[in-house]
């Protein structure tokens, strides 16, 4: 298809693309609005089939050169139906009146269990079209949504191949229960899909929209709708994206050989704190004897040794079409993501087939199937850790460029603290994974009467996941000599069946539609794993492990049974009222507490359909909305209400039962009471603004209430405490400039969220990895850091200092002072890991066939504790770890009176202990995506028997503007094993991507 000749021809056409029309005549006229005859400024008048045209002036008047002979012109303007007009040979004047197109309001939006006309919506819903999603190349829809939906926070905290972003809608509203939004694919809860197959994404934000999903909707709902056939004509699309990615180390610039050499002189200063007779000079003789200049012979950049640019490829092919009986869509994707870190990657194949068979006009049967398989290689945290911390004075390779083996017994000089060469470790280890996933959806639509329809949707799913950790006996470390293999598999069968009666009828100016029905959702998950040691060299299978064999595995079968209903009433396309009611029963709770109910009510007023606004030219759409409802959470794992002893341990080779959990028989639903008020306004047919304010209170939190440790349990599951989230969202979408050749559109959104904890049973200080504490108390914020305030370096002693805050009995601050005794420093609340506001600012410019798109995402006001700095800015307390190149203006204390930012290595007691020294402002503005593209002329495409050819170059994560010190500031906000929200540890860095996109339709 793409042979050289055609390509050359194509290039030639690009160059010679100009308007070569024969001389002609001038057509003059006026464009008006049909309804009232007022002029329509900015309307485009184009000669059909060409790019020749003009725009109407402020008075609606235009003048256009047209060729001799009969010609068709097209008149178009945003918010109006386009019109084709034939101009006769002798005609030189024409007036055209355009009809308003309320497409925006009549556009159909996918909502929970149904669809609604956009104009009828009564709740806060954002729709993102495939067009707006496809800028960022990823296998993860979260990354694509970043910056495009007000109220949606997306954190890409890892750049590991195949990693998923963390998505939070309208803040975090729970402490211990899951927080991710519910994903619904093609109307059915859960499911697998490929981003290339996505037609649109609907984000349901308030309870008016989400309460119909009841106990699974506390984190909001994201509905993914996959592509369906659009027209009779068979359409094919082929997309190829190829390019490469590089790691983004942020400001984590590690020292090179000579920088470190110079830096280490500070460790040889003659200074013993608290004594007299210090000379404060560097003992160069001792320095040179202990750090021979020969170490400068090596200048290893461990980061660039272990991280390399890696290729990314994404190929997509689809076919769709319609016959009288059948609609079909087929999509195939191959996604191949190289990892920037040595021996990591991710590949995925996804096949989707969507078919709808029409028995009659009304009776339809839909069969959708999605099959995906992936495989890749993960990594070990320690290898990334050493990429940052090993010294540039060590060389990972021998003379033959083989990675050398180092361990604690190696007798050659290895400077780095831990005797480890990660390149050798990676050579002798492997972390492969595989997944396979199949979804089959079956839906039947069966009309019973003209207003009543039976609708059943069902999905069966099966998935398999496998991951393995392998160390060869030749590896350095724990498994040296023995090797280690650990294989873990997960099998899952899931089913969900939703059976609804849907009704829809009109009575005069009133229209009522709604649904009632029942849903059952269940799954069975089996984990099976085994590990062992004593592997023969060169073999990597469980069959050959000979020692320390261990097995693990357990089944789990959660289920939910639900009854749901919804009624939508509208009057005269002006007043709208909706109500929904869902009852969920969950296997997670004790008999008697299984069922919870989740009601909602919402109302809308489409003021622009009222007489007083109907003819308004400024305001073309005005909708006021109000909603209240309750959603819940039950996703805390099985049997949290039982007093349990775990049988997973052993003692002296015998079964042993260890206390696992305190009994909490009354445990039940966490419920989030959500109030939302908002309005949508459309102006001048080119600006759309949506504003929402919300007040969400999560009550009866499923909380792990802290117990005195002396009870023998850290916590007990109880329904206790509240989380309050108040927020404001603002989104504007604007056609700034729109004329024939040049268009500029802007999408901007910003959302503010304020979070408070209420009615907490007791104050809890949670101390996680790296001894970083966060405090949970009534009146405080979620993920609030709790640590001493860093007060710089004592100019006289070079010692670190922290703030001491003295308070009177009423808690009023009476005085503050500084101390160099860490234990007497005052613990203070220091800000939260959650942002105060975040949003996106996206612009697209089109000039003739070219486009330029610049998308940004920002977060403001969140704190990130960079735990790495305790190691890479450690004031000589761990001298054999590489150090960060500190920002300009930093200096190490050298003598009494020196005003310095870094403590003296000779007087550094506790300088790296947790304090605000390493707590950084996590605010950032990220240049998410820049794309520049060109659509080839249709005439050319047609010559190649294609209908559309688009080429573009794009760059993702181009640059991040931030004052944060460390790797990029995007830091996980999901608590977990070794993870405290907002605490940054050495991570797989996020990637910059540079890609070439080719998109062909035929």
């Amino acid at each position: 298809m793409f042979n050289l000749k055609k390509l050359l021809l194509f290039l030639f056409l690009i160059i010679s693309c100009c308007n070569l029309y024969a001389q002609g005549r001038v057509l003059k006229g006026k464009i008006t609005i049909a309804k009232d005859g007022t002029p329509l400024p900015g309307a485009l008048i184009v000669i059909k089939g060409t790019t020749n045209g003009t725009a109407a002036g402020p008075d609606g008047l235009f003048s256009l050169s047209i060729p001799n002979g009969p010609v068709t012109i097209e008149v178009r303007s945003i918010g109006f139906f386009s019109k084709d007009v034939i101009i006769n040979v002798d005609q030189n004047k024409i007036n055209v009146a355009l009809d308003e197109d309320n497409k925006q309001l009549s556009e159909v939006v996918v909502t929970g269990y149904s669809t609604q006309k956009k104009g009828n919506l009564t709740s806060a819903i954002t729709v993102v079209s495939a067009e707006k999603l496809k800028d960022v190349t990823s296998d993860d829809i979260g990354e694509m949504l970043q910056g495009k939906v007000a109220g949606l926070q997306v954190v890409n905290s890892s750049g590991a191949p195949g990693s998923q972003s963390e998505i939070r809608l309208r803040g975090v509203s729970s402490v211990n229960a899951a927080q991710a939004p519910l994903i619904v694919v093609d109307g059915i809860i859960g499911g697998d899909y490929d981003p290339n197959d996505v037609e649109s994404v609907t984000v349901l934000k308030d309870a008016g929209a989400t309460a119909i999903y009841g106990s699974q909707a506390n984190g909001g709902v994201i509905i993914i709708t996959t592509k369906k056939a659009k027209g009779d004509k068979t359409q094919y699309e082929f997309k190829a994206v190829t390019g490469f990615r590089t790691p983004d180390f942020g400001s984590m610039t590690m020292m090179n050989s000579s920088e470190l050499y110079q830096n280490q002189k500070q460790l040889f200063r003659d200074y013993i704190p608290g004594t007299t007779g210090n000379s404060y000079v560097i003992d160069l003789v001792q320095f040179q004897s202990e750090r021979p200049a020969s170490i400068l012979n090596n200048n290893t950049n461990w980061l660039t040794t272990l991280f390399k640019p890696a290729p990314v490829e994404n190929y997509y092919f689809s076919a769709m079409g319609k016959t009288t009986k059948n609609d079909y869509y087929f999509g195939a994707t191959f996604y191949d993501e190289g990892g920037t870190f040595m021996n990591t990657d991710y590949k995925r194949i996804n096949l989707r087939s969507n078919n709808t068979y029409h028995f009659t006009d009304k009776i339809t049967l839909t069969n959708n199937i999605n099959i995906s398989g992936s495989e890749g290689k993960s990594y070990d945290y320690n290898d990334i850790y050493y990429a940052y911390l090993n010294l540039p004075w060590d060389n990972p390779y021998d003379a033959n460029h083989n990675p050398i083996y180092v361990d604690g017994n190696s007798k050659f000089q290895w400077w780095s603290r831990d005797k480890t060469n990660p390149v050798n470790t990676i050579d002798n280890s492997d972390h492969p994974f595989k997944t396979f996933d199949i979804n089959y959806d079956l839906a039947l639509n069966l009309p019973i009467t003209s207003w009543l329809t039976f609708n059943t949707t069902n999905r069966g799913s099966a998935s398999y996941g496998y991951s393995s950790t392998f160390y060869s006996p030749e590896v350095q470390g724990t498994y040296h000599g023995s090797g280690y293999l650990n294989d873990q598999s997960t099998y899952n069968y899931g089913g969900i069946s939703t059976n609804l009666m849907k009704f829809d009828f009109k009575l005069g100016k009133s229209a009522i539609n709604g649904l009632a029905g029942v849903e059952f959702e269940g799954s069975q998950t089996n984990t099976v794993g085994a590990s062992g040691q004593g592997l023969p060299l060169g073999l990597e299978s469980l069959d050959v492990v000979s020692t320390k064999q261990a097995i693990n595995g357990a089944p789990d079968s959660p289920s939910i049974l639900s009854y749901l209903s919804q009624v939508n009433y509208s009057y005269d396309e002006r007043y709208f009222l909706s109500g929904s009611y869902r009852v969920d029963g969950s296997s997670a709770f004790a008999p008697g507490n299984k069922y919870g109910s989740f009601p909602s009510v919402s109302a809308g007023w489409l003021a622009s359909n009222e007489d007083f606004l109907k003819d308004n030219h400024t305001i073309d759409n005005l909708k006021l909305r109000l909603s209240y409802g309750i959603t819940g959470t039950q996703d805390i794992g099985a049997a949290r209400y039982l007093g349990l002893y775990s049988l997973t341990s052993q003692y002296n080779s015998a079964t042993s039962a260890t206390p696992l959990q305190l009994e909490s028989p009354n445990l039940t639903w966490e419920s989030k009471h959500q109030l939302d008020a908002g309005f949508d306004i459309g102006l001048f047919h080119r600006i759309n603004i949506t504003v929402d304010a919300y007040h969400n209170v999560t009550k009866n939190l499923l909380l792990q209430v802290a117990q005195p440790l002396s009870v023998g349990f850290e916590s007990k599951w109880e329904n206790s405490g509240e989380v309050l989230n108040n927020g404001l969202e603002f989104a504007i979408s604007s056609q700034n400039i729109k004329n024939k050749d040049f268009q500029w559109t802007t999408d901007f959104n910003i959302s503010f969220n304020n979070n408070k904890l209420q009615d907490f049973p007791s104050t809890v200080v949670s101390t996680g990895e790296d001894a970083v504490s966060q405090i949970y108390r009534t009146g405080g914020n979620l993920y609030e850091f709790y640590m001493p305030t860093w007060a710089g370096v004592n100019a006289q002693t070079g010692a670190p200092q922290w703030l001491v805050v003295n308070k009177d009995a009423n808690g009023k601050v009476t005085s503050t002072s500084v101390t160099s005794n860490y234990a007497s420093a005052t613990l203070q609340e220091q800000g939260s890991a959650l942002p105060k506001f975040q949003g996106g600012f996206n612009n697209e410019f089109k000039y003739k066939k070219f486009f330029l798109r610049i998308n940004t995402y920002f977060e403001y006001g969140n704190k990130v504790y960079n735990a790495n700095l305790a190691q890479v800015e450690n004031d000589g307390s761990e001298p054999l770890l590489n150090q960060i190149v500190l920002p300009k203006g930093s200096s190490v204390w050298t003598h009494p009176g020196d005003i310095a930012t870094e403590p003296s290595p000779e007087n550094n007691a506790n300088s790296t202990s947790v304090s605000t020294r390493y707590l950084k402002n996590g605010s950032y503005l990220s240049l998410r995506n820049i794309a520049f593209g060109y659509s080839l002329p249709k005439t050319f495409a047609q010559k190649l028997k294609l209908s559309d050819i688009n080429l573009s170059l794009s760059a993702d994560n181009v640059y991040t503007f931030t004052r944060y010190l460390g790797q990029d500031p995007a830091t996980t906000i999901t608590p977990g094993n070794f993870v405290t929200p907002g605490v940054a540890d050495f991570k797989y860095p996020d990637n910059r991507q540079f890609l070439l996109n080719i998109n062909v339709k035929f």
Partner: protein
Amino acid sequence: MKNKILLIAAFSMLIYSGCKLEDNPTNAVTTASLATTADGLTNAVNGAYALFKDHEVFEGTTDANNMYLRQYFQMSDFASDDVVCSQVTTDPLWLSFTLAHVPTQENASYFWYISYKIISDANTVIEAGSKISNPTPAQQQLIGECYFLRAFCTFNLARFFAEPYTINPNAPGVILRTSTTDPAVKARASVKDTYTQVIADAVKASQLMTDGASRGVTFATKEAAEALLSRVSLYEGDYQSAITYSNAVINSGRFTEATAADYKTLFANAQADKETIFCIAFDALDDYGKEGSIASQYYTNGNSGWGEEFASQPLRDLYAQNPSDVRTSYIDDDVDSTGTQQYKNGIPIYYITKFSFQGGSPSLSSPIMFRLSEMYLNRAEAEANLNQTTAALTDVDFIRSNRGLSGALYNGTVPAGQTALDVVLQERRLELAFEADRTFTVYRNKQNMDRTYWGYHILGLQAADINLSVAPANYPNLIVPYTSTKIIYYIPEAEILSNSAATQNP
């Protein structure tokens, strides 16, 4: 017709039957079932022992550094003058060296938590057992083990978190948990009341357990309870009782002092050695290697551990007085092939191997909680305090004659410038080094801890400042007086915040 069939099918799908909505745990049993199933009690008692060695979830994380026994040894011996630190670390074990304790210190918090988890487990079994009419000897043994475990854990808590009895018996002790239905908010008992409870439990344990029902030295036994009573009595200054209980163990005939030849393998072979009274069994699956084994702190074969904490200079000097002392076999001097001493950050490397070489593994051992030598030393110390000098020296000589020191016995004579107690305490240091004894022995005898040697317990020390030919000078806190508040740990912040009745240590 076709439509009607579809319609019927459709409506039938609206009705679900047989929805159990149950998702019961598959790898756990309910607490209530422990008392009602055949193996329930045995499993629960075994679980209490497992907690000494397992890495339990704490603060949402399963951290390999968190293990009761790993912390038991680091919190005691790293604070003593027997172990030297060669590496500043973010692991809270460093705070045990520097004594820069904080209330959120993870090693102390986890140790406190797991101690009470074992106590809670023991209480559950004791309560279930109290409902059994006519318990069999085997059942009595299980219940007795739980009384022992409650006493042992409560006593260890008192050692770490309360002032020594001999310094202030009226100081706050620990929270006494003797029932699972206790109110969660509860104050600390006094040290005196804590000891009373420990002794009562241990006595009860020794009565319930019988030699016939014994499950071996990897479980509590009648003699383990008596050994505990010997130790507690000594700490309490009840010397007569200390002698009585030591005698009970020594005279039970179940244990034999290891000879000089056997001693070298005592710790690698703890489960089978005749000197062991009670040890915690670690088997091959409990070999945590570099990440999380006790040994990984003290020793490495290059790959098996971090090997960052070594035998201190004063302890080595003490052993060096008698080169034939077989106890030095647990100190492994790291020299290269040319015999050159190896250093880590300026500190000479002398690995400690008391936690290694079970089954040949460098990172595996079954740590001994009580052994026969201690009974002799407890008796000797009691005798010295009761001015029974000859008896005390005889006991010391009994130990020394089994440690290759037959040529260096006291033979009833206290060396000039020393007291009998000095002799006993020095022998105790040599014999029980690295066994979580030294710190408590120093402070309960109202002595000061002298840590005037090079190591990273000295805050702000740089390798360049180390001059091994002279002792460090001018650094603060080299000598820790027994009056220091730092000789014990803070009550964990998590306890203080959720238990309004609990008071913090100064």
